[in-house]
């Protein structure tokens, strides 16, 4: 997962929604199908692909999709 586009594809796969529903300024918790299970699966997939383990505190500190992506940079 090297680019923002890859990140959006990962999110769309995990949430089971179309890429077009995910915009940089979208509040990720407001996205369709966002749930505690999907949050866990997303964190798990990010960890698997990047070895970055997002903490619950880090997740709580951001609001938009773009901010979430920046935590990985």
């Amino acid at each position, binding site marked *: 997962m090297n680019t923002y586009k890859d990140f959006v594809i990962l999110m769309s796969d995990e949430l*089971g929604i179309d890429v077009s529903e995910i915009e940089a300024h979208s509040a990720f918790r407001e996205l369709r*199908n966002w*749930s*505690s*299970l*999907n*949050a*866990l*699966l997303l*964190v*798990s997939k990010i*960890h*698997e692909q990047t070895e970055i*383990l997002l*903490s*619950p505190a880090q*997740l709580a500190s951001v609001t938009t999709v773009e901010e979430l992506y920046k935590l990985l940079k």
Partner: protein
Amino acid sequence: MRIKSIQIVHPENKIDNLTLFKDTIPDIDKFCTTTGIRYRYEAPENHTIEDYFVQGIKALNVEISSIDVLITVTQTPTKLIPSLSNYLNQQLRFSEDILTYDLTSGCSGYTEALVLANQLFQSTSAERIVVCNGDFSNHIIDKKNTTVKPLFSDVAAVTLLERSENLFFSNQKSYADGYSAISSQDGKMTLNGLDVFQFSTLYVAKSIQELVAKNNVEPEIIAFYFFHQANQIINQTIAKQLKISTEKVPQSITGYGNSSSASIPLTLALHASQLKKNQKILLSGFGVGFKICNVVTDLCPFDANITVFEDKSI
């Protein structure tokens, strides 16, 4: 010390998460596939973990008077005074010389009890130690809490340990920052899945690597890794971190969900027929606290039975 027998007692009431939550949890299919938790057992309100332990101890098929030490581990005793082991004594009439301990612990409670038992074999003349593990977690979960409600089974595990010269080493970790990951408030359990994932992913594999390295054991010679069964996502992550195939990680989560401190003996009992004499196994209990306790031991064949609780009140 060796495991001589494991007796599992569970309620009759088997629940299929897919059916129970089809109208209330939108992604229940995905939940079952990813967490692995499909079937669970819920004990009726009038059942107690104590009576399940009584049935399990009777099923061990040993002279009650020959039990030297009793260790009980639960977070859901029916009452606090007198503590649970006294109820078991009242029901079963142990020797008056019995030494008893009542521990409060969850996910790491099985391995913690094994560590205590191993110490007691060394420091006393005990020949037989019985360990009782399990929680009636569903009795302390709010039925409307759809995050926690699909996770747990109410299962009791009774393990008979006997004095023997076996391999046994262990380590443990305790992380203060994980205090709130699994908690109870006003008598009801709360659980933050992301916190549990975070702590498990950060620390469990590392603690296991530390244990095997310190005792000069090649990880390859460990035949099976029996992990606490909280969530398949967590156990798959730990297996990847340890670079072990999932075939070496037996599970009970699909048929039973998270059975708290009974999860490791339950998984051992389910796979007893596949285990061979002298195989080395690793047991890792981790969770509420946040605590980890790992044990490496070798095996002798042991008896294992899984039975439904016989409700004599009906």
